[in-house]
């Protein structure tokens, strides 16, 4: 999952960045509103974390502009404890959730996951098809009730496909959302991972949780 982090406090930004990257997110950081807007319009994100008190275009204006430009990814705002006026305004102009400082990083990640799930249309974190069940909250997959051994990256691919269930996801898109920018991309890597995933999730080949659309990409169909 690719996340846009807009936060002007350097130390906090670094902490959140490290934490989210360790958790498997691809993180783009901006230290002010203008840069945040540039990134938000230029790249495709799954979720954004925006601090309200930003220099050069405050958080509220940034969110408002992103929504005006039809950027629909969920936004979580970071705010000081007393600022209810700003919290409410932030939510009114298009944010989806808020978190007051100081916060626990685990809570931040949990909320981001929840926001992504909500945006993908999942009322419940668990998706099932026959013997295969995918728990997007607990981040694990089970086959006939037994947990599957997926590598972190394998899960991330699966998760991304699951969070974009209604459409075809190209290899390029997968790469952009799951890899850091400087990664030396080889599109074949994705095919290898998809292949491995299929073997693990659907050893009989009957469920077909991931369909290949020739020339376009893959689609999640659980």
């Amino acid at each position: 999952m690719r996340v846009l982090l807009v936060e002007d406090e350097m130390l906090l930004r670094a902490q959140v960045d490290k934490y989210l990257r360790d958790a498997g997110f691809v993180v783009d950081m901006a230290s002010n509103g203008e840069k945040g807007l540039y990134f938000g319009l230029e790249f495709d994100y799954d979720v954004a974390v925006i601090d309200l008190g930003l220099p050069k275009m405050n958080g509220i204006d940034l969110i408002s502009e992103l929504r005006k430009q039809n950027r629909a990814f969920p936004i979580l705002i970071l705010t000081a404890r007393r600022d209810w006026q700003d919290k409410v305004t932030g939510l009114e102009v298009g944010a989806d959730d808020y978190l007051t400082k100081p916060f626990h990083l685990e809570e931040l990640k949990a909320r981001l996951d929840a926001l992504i799930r909500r945006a993908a249309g999942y009322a419940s974190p668990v998706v099932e098809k026959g013997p295969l069940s995918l728990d997007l909250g607990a981040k694990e997959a089970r086959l006939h009730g037994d947990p599957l051994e997926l590598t972190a990256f394998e899960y991330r691919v699966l998760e991304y496909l699951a969070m974009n269930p209604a459409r075809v996801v190209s290899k390029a898109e997968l790469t952009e959302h799951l890899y850091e920018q400087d990664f030396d991309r080889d599109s074949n890597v994705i095919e290898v991972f998809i292949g491995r995933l299929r073997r693990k999730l659907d050893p009989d080949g009957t469920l077909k949780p991931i369909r290949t659309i020739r020339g376009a990409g893959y689609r999640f169909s659980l």
Partner: protein
Amino acid sequence: MATTAIALCLFLLATGWIWERLFTTSVRASAEEQMLIVARGLVDATRKDADPAALGRTYVSEAGPRERAPGPSILLPDELGEPRLSRPNSGLYAYIETADGSLAWRSPSMTITSVAAVPNPRPPPGDSRFHKIEIDGTEPRFLLGYTVILEELEDLELTFWVLNDQAPFSAEIREFRRSLVAGVIAATLLLIVLQLGTLRWGLRPLRRMAERVRGLHAGQRGDIGEDYPAELAQLARTLNRFVAHELESRERYRRAMGDLAHSLKTPLAVLKNALTTPDRPDKTLFDDQLDRMEATVSRQLSRAAAMPPVLPHEPVPVTPLLERLCRALDKAYAEKHVDVDVRAGDVRVRADERDVMDVLGNLLENAYKYSHSKVRVAAGKDNRHATRAFGRKSSAPREEAIGLDAIAARSNPCEVVQIVIEDDGDGIPESAKQYVFERGARADTAHSGHGIGLASAVELASAYGGTVELADSDLGGARVILKMPA
């Protein structure tokens, strides 16, 4: 003040000019009237004493009878009503003209050398005309002409002319002018003096006030007193209130900062010490101390930053704020699907909108967080006095007194708005309630910041003279009752 003085002077000058004009006109009118009386007197004399037999026969002048004049001539007695007419060069002259312009008589005062009859258009019968005559080389005079038709003399039309020296009248006018000018100058000076005096005396309370304000600035006084005349009393009271409020705010701020610094010292010390021990840092200890620091920072900030205004605030409608907050919280807690029931009429609170939002936001957030699935909000007027069910024992008693006085001073003490927020959660245990208020610590470890939000709300509400009470809800969870002045 200068403008007033100039205006007064101009006014007096204008008045003086008007008086002078009036007097001059009056003098003229008087002269005219006098001369008309003389003319009428002559008419009467002519009527009575003119000898009809002599009419048409002789023309009498002081040089003696002359050749026969074409028209009638008049004989009048030597003793005329007005003695001046008989005295040569007396200044008052009269002569009678016939309809064809010939002279029928002239007064003894009118010697040939002294004055000549001046040709003038004759007024119509029954009418009189009054002129000022000024001929170079001669004295200015008044001339009155009066034409009559005498039945007794066979309908003879005669014009009676009276000439009068202006000199005595001019003298009168001059005399008057002198007095007037002197009077106007005196009045002007008197008025200026009076004005100066009144202003000085009238402005004394203002000067006193200004002096006391200077004293305020210099820190020598705490207020500007109340001994002022009625017009200034209200201003003085308001100024005093501003000053008192400023001092109160500053005091509250100082105390909050002091308490903050004090309360932070211990956890900071504990943390520092924990880092110096050779053991690995105890995560729970750090969490607890940091929570404590966070709580105290939040609480003291709310206390210091809450600054209700001096004058009663514009009432802020509560219902729209509740709606906005619930919509926002609905969004943030979408996955929980909280069922919110809001019942609020048109209630208004006298407080800053931001502050009201902060209080309600904190309390509503707690309700959403702790509820299982249901939150109920009710807002309405409470017509009893606000009571304090939960005192803040750690605060100075003076603060509480201010709170209650604040309700009384700023609004009708009976007008209190009550907002009740309930949830169907697990509620706050009795033992934890007091603890929650005092220390702002977590009442429930599963959810963070519950106590902090509540403590902040209490601080903010108290700054406006409001209160927060805790009770149990019939929904199963907590029942938070917020009271604010309407």
